[in-house]
């Protein structure tokens, strides 16, 4: 089981689906950001899994995974800063109460 690419890809797909559910269903903006982190981790897992099983991709996959991690860190920083800035104005972390542009 641990020696087949399929099991790692299935694991990554399940993790991605869990992240999708959290992003769509949660009301808290920080929960949505955590779900995005789960999805990025799922994609990274599939990249590393392909690198570990397909010989020509071996080192390329590691480099791409490192770059994805760096970009995800930048995304988390800016996302959390935006949420804190909105919280300072609206006094709530719940996304369905961010309705200033609806009126």
């Amino acid at each position: 089981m641990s020696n087949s690419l399929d099991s790692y890809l299935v694991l990554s797909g399940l993790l991605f689906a869990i992240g999708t559910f959290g992003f769509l269903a949660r009301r808290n903006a920080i929960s949505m950001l955590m779900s995005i982190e789960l999805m990025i981790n799922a994609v990274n897992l599939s990249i590393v899994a392909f690198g570990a099983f397909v010989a020509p991709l071996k080192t390329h996959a590691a480099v791409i995974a490192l770059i994805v991690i760096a970009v995800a860190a930048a995304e988390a920083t800016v996302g959390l800063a935006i949420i804190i800035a909105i919280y300072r104005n609206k006094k709530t972390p719940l996304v369905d109460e961010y309705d200033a542009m609806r009126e």
Partner: protein
Amino acid sequence: MPIGDSIPLVGIRWDDVLFVVLAATLLVSALLVVTLRDIIRCGLSLTVSFASLAGIYVMLGNPLIAATQVLVYIGAISVLILFAIMLTQTKNAPIRLVFQTQAWIAAAAAAVLAVVIVATVLTTTWPAGGQRLWTATADVAHLLFHDYVLPFEVVSVLLTAAVVGAVYLARREPGRREEDRS
């Protein structure tokens, strides 16, 4: 004392046991992240899922990515998320509704997505060998600073821009101090 490749008597390989334990930890903690009511517990269980994913990276023969996962995700992003939770926590947050009202549609969509991905993975024949390959860190370093040096520099510029932007966004504006205190 060296232990064998598989569990004696039962015949299950140690690798498979380790994979099942890590994968179960990963999926359960990810489910807890999206379903728990108390958001600080969501953050802590997110840390657990990052850690088990680091273990899976080690199993995939990629210790450099595993170390980066521990440093960046557990060390930096988890702490950042926990700080953001503490800054935006309101007293009555856990009592209120956690999910959107259309959460069951989201659950159905996520289930369909999971089924589609799993079916695609299982029906495709990947051009993959049946053996995990070990990635040498020296090769990664050579490739990163040789062929991928332009993406590397772009990422460094992106990180600088992200840090400056985050400081600018989260900065307290000078004229709004009275409003903030309310």
